[in-house]
């Protein structure tokens, strides 16, 4: 069964408090090489049918309208898993 991967990230311009807190934690383990962390989401959508361009377009709409909020997030990737 094919799986479609959708990735969503908070918009670049927005503060990402969870990423900031994680960055501070990671920085305790390094020599100062880590400067920033941003946390996004990865959705693995399993299908019971072959992936068609129409279906991919439909998933794109769902990614834009449901899986992400375009005010605060961007859909950064939609691709079929190997």
């Amino acid at each position, binding site marked *: 069964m094919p799986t479609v991967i959708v990735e969503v990230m*908070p918009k670049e311009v*927005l*503060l990402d*408090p*969870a990423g900031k807190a994680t960055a501070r934690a990671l920085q305790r383990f390094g020599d100062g090489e880590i400067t920033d962390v941003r946390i996004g989401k990865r959705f693995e959508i399993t299908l019971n049918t072959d992936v068609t361009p129409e279906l991919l377009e439909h998933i794109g709409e769902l990614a834009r309208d*449901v899986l992400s*909020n375009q*005010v*605060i997030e961007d859909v950064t990737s939609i691709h079929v898993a190997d």
Partner: protein
Amino acid sequence: MRVGVITFPGSLDDRDALRAVRLAGGEPVSLWHDDHDLQGVDALIIPGGFSYGDYLRCGAIAAHSPIMREVIDAANKGLPVLGICNGFQVLVEAHLLDGGLIRNDHGTFIRRDQKLRVENVDTAWTNTYELGQEITIPLKNGEGGFIADDETLKRLEGEGLVTFRYLDVNPNGSLNDIAGLRNARGNVVGLMPHPEHAVEAGFGPDADRMQSGTDGLAMFVSVLTDTVLSK
């Protein structure tokens, strides 16, 4: 006047909202997220809590739940709708109000008695306040940071759609100290703080006397005496 309160899985303050309606003199009506029936209510409240565990994004799954189709339709026809805290997040996710709400800039959950200024009284939910009135009602959230792009923010300010602004302390990093918003028509209002927790002396925030604050009650009275929408 019948005022509905929608309960979602994970709603917390639905009972408090029903009680606030009753104390204001209205008839509270419980509504269920999985129905397609608003039971003919005259106004509607989306309460606080953590609908659907706040999975995906706060309010996002609730915004796509069955009853919301009727809510969006009714709101667009002028039905008064108030979103409190998680309810504000639901209204934003349902595109009934502008902007977005993200995690507090300091990263922690906050609970405090919050001072606000009423910035707009031409709405179904604020018409018994005085313009510029300072009120204190409880605030409790982890993701209450209001954000919008520059263009949207300019429009919200220009059209006077900011309805409540944080005073003294900005508790979550909200842009322009925005605590609550209205839509252009004035029937839909959303805010992060909780008016339903400040409706009865003895159970509200501290005011003249301990826990005597009832500054939230006027919001529920406003919708009962609403003259804005009948204009």
